[in-house]
């Protein structure tokens, strides 16, 4: 909570540093128009830009709390609450899919790499991981999207559909962005899993487990992976920011109507109430995912318990 509040102060203060006149942006949009001075003053009044900073901040935070999210978009006049309602699920689903996909693919691969250390499966997996880690998400996204058009003359559908409306179209439109987004996180998870597994496998309790005659799979998963997952979780928590940063650019490239693309559009049109609200939401999402990883800790690590 204090973290969120502080983030809100930061966002608010940055947005008030706008050198241009927000009122002009409201009036102008784009095109060939000119404006009167009184008209600008009127818009300033309407937007509350003439109030003291503290009052403006208080209004804004209150509107965040009561679900108003700072009123309306300057650009489309849509209420920000409805923008959030429309765009947030898209980003939430995309990040969720990407996290699931990267976990499902990279943790087993990490275990395999650790198990076959310094043999060809290990080298292959590490090479893929290094490559995946090195190509910035947006470069990969462009090359994949535009490459597919050239090579197989296919591109994802252009009109987004929610999974509950049209699951098939939804799947076809989110497939590519999910894969691209998962690459970066997956590569990081893979590397950490491998490293952690190697560490764990060399420790006494694994040797004990093996000597007790337990099956290799049980040793690996029940004993090894469970402990190795802790650093994996720590790193995933740290990677969430990068993941969401990637999602911002990805949504713009793939035309997914999520908060990332909404944010980029709002920035280019200086739709500052929307920029503020969406930035707040992204921060909230980062904190929420971090909180979730903290909770997972409790389940995975036998030593930690929130009761104590």
């Amino acid at each position, binding site marked *: 909570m204090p973290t969120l509040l*502080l983030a809100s102060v*930061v966002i608010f203060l940055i947005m008030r540093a706008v050198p241009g006149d927000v009122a002009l942006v409201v009036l102008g949009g784009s095109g060939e128009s000119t404006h009167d001075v009184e008209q600008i003053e009127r818009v300033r009044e309407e937007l509350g830009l003439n109030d003291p900073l503290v009052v403006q901040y208080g209004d804004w935070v209150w509107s965040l709390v009561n679900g108003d999210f700072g009123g309306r978009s300057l650009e489309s006049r849509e209420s920000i609450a409805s923008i959030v309602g429309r765009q947030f699920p898209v980003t939430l689903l995309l990040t969720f899919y990407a996290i699931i996909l990267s976990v499902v693919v990279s943790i087993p691969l990490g275990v395999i790499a650790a198990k076959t250390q310094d043999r060809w499966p290990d080298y292959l997996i590490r090479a893929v991981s290094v490559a995946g*880690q090195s190509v910035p998400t947006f*470069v990969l996204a462009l090359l994949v999207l535009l490459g597919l058009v050239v090579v197989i003359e296919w591109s994802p559908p252009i009109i987004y559909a929610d999974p509950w409306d049209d699951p098939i179209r939804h799947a076809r439109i989110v497939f590519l962005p999910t894969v691209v987004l998962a690459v970066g996180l997956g590569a990081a998870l893979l590397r950490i899993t491998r490293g952690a597994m190697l560490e764990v496998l060399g420790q006494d309790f694994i040797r004990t487990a093996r000597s007790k005659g337990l099956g290799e799979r049980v040793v690996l998963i029940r004993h090894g992976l469970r402990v190795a997952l802790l650093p994996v979780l720590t790193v995933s928590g740290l990677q969430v920011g990068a993941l969401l*940063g990637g999602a911002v650019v990805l949504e*713009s490239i793939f035309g997914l109507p999520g908060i990332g693309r909404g944010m980029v559009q709002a920035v280019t049109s200086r739709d500052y109430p929307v920029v503020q609200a969406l930035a707040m939401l992204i921060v909230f999402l980062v904190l929420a995912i971090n909180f979730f990883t903290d909770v997972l800790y409790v389940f995975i690590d036998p030593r930690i318990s929130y009761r104590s």
Partner: protein
Amino acid sequence: MSVEPGQRYLRRGAKAFIRLPVLRSAHVLRRKPLGAAGLAVMLALVVLALFADQIATHDPLGQDIDNRLRAPGSDFFFGTDSFGRDTFSRVVHGARVSLYVGVVSVAIAVAAGAVLGVASAYFGGKLDLLFQRFVDGLMAFPTLVLALVLAAALGAAANNVVLAIIIAVTPQTARLTRSSALSVRQEMYIDAAEAMGAQPWRVIVLHMLPNALTPVVVLMPVLLEQAIIAEAAMSFLGLGVPPPEPSWGRMLQEGTDGYLEAAPWLTYFPALALTLTVFSASMIGDALRDILDPRFASRSAFRPAEVGRVR
């Protein structure tokens, strides 16, 4: 406590700091081939950036419309763009932009984070608590999101990206410096220094700071990577380095938005440059962490004893 051992500890603290960056290179090369490769690429980049004017074969801004969209060849190593500007020279100068943004922002962030973190650890109490909350708030921002917010407020410019990265990264460095400074604070040589009647700032600057910086050094390549990607992404979105300055992100945007088929070299070379840079930073980061941070070291890495106890 006598003065004699105090001075010994002091010397040890200073030595640890000096020894740290000068890692025995032969070992690194043998044990960490990827890290060494990364280091080589990074050095090459630094050379490109420093001697861009000498290395570039053409003026990166010089237009030659009669030679527009030439494929890579002996005249134009990486081909030319829509204005007939030489892509090779632009990529070379782009290294300067990338490294400028990366190095300046990381250097400032590390310095600011170090001062804040150590001061917070040293003074403790309410200041520390306040500082912690503040860091928490800033830590929650993905760098790119913060950069976007800043771009919305201040407009598109290289220095706004630098500022955004500084704001996003400083909390990480500050947090890390603080926690290691806290453990350094327990060390005897700090007590010794204080017992010798050293001023707080003297203790902080001369003793705590150098010793608390190790984990930050480990983090630096990762921060550099973040900064370079953020600049490229912002420039790609048209919110970063303004034209005509060559930036890899903007070159990528121009290349993919209209020339991917007619002139693919406009996309491939900046993409390659960016990927190599990220690769090098991330490999250096991995190697450094394995070497300097024993907790993450895998079995094949250095034994902690080989590096020497840093703390």
